[in-house]
C-alpha cells in the first residue's frame, strides 16, 4: 500500500487549524498511517490562495482531493471555511468521520 499524500492548508487568521490538525492526525493514526507525515502548509497571501485554489482555512486534501470538495463557484481567498457535522451543526473543521472515510477511500484506491 502506498501512503496517501495528506495535506493540511491553513490561514493563520482562522483559529481552527490546530483542531483540524489534531483531528487529522488522529484519523491517520486510526487508519494505520503515520500522523507525522501530514504536510502542513500556511497560505498567507491572496496570491498564494489563488495559486493553491485555497477557498478557506482549514483545507484538507488527500492525494490532491479536497475531503469536502467545494462547488465550482466557491471563491478563493483568505477566510475561514464553513463545514457541517453529520448531525447538521456548523463547524469550523471537517467532521472527523469525513476525514476517516476520505483516508479509507484513498488507501483502498492505492491498494493493488
Amino acid at each position, binding site marked *: 500500500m502506498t501512503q496517501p499524500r495528506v495535506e493540511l492548508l491553513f490561514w493563520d487568521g482562522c*483559529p481552527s487549524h490546530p483542531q483540524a490538525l489534531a483531528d487529522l492526525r488522529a484519523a491517520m493514526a486510526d487508519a494505520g498511517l503515520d500522523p507525522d507525515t501530514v504536510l502542513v502548509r500556511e497560505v498567507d497571501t491572496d496570491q498564494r490562495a489563488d495559486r493553491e485554489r485555497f477557498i478557506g482555512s482549514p483545507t484538507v486534501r488527500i492525494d490532491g482531493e479536497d475531503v469536502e470538495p467545494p462547488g465550482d463557484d466557491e*471563491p478563493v481567498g483568505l*477566510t*475561514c*471555511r*464553513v463545514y457541517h457535522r453529520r448531525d447538521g451543526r456548523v*463547524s469550523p473543521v471537517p467532521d472527523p468521520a469525513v476525514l476517516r472515510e476520505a483516508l479509507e477511500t484513498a488507501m483502498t484506491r492505492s491498494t493493488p
Partner: protein
Amino acid sequence: MSPAIGEAAPAFDLPDTDGGRHSVGGDGARQDAAATVVVCTCNHCPYALAWHERLLDVARDYADRGVRMLAINPNDAERYPRDSFDAMRERVRADGGWPVPYLRDEDQSVARAYEAKTTPDVFVVAPDGAIAYRGAPDADHGEPDLRAAWLRAALDDVLAGRPVERAETKPVGCSVKWRA
C-alpha cells in the same frame, strides 16, 4: 485602547437591514434598555454561524426583561462580499426575519471603538452605559447545549444589579476583516 469593563461603551448609530437605525448612547448616557447586548458578527465565519442560534435564543428569552441585542457586521465587504450590506439583507430575508436588528458598520468605526477582535465578540452594556461583559457567548462553539451560558450569566447579574461575576472571557472566532 479598548474600553475596559466598567468604562463607558462607545457611542454609535448604525443602519440595519430593514431600513431602521439603532444607537448606543456612550459617554455616561443611560440606556433605555435594561441591558444592551452588542454582538460583533458576520455572515461567513463558521464560529459566528455556530453561535448564531444560541445568541438569537438569548435575545428571545430576555426580550421581555428589557434586554435588547444588536448584531453588527463590520467586515470589509470588498474582500469578503458575503459580508456586504446586500448579503446581510438577503440572509435576514432568507431566514424569515431575525429577533434582533442586523446592523452594518461600513466604515468599521464601531468595531474599532470597541476593539472587537473576532466574530463573534460579545459586549453587554449596562443601563448606566458601562460595559459589563465582554467575550465569548460560552465556552464552546460546538456545544449548543451550553446555550450562551456566559452571556446569560452576565445578563442575569446586570438585571439583578450585581457586578458581573465573570465579566471578561476570551473572544473566540474569525478575526474581524479590517479594510487594508
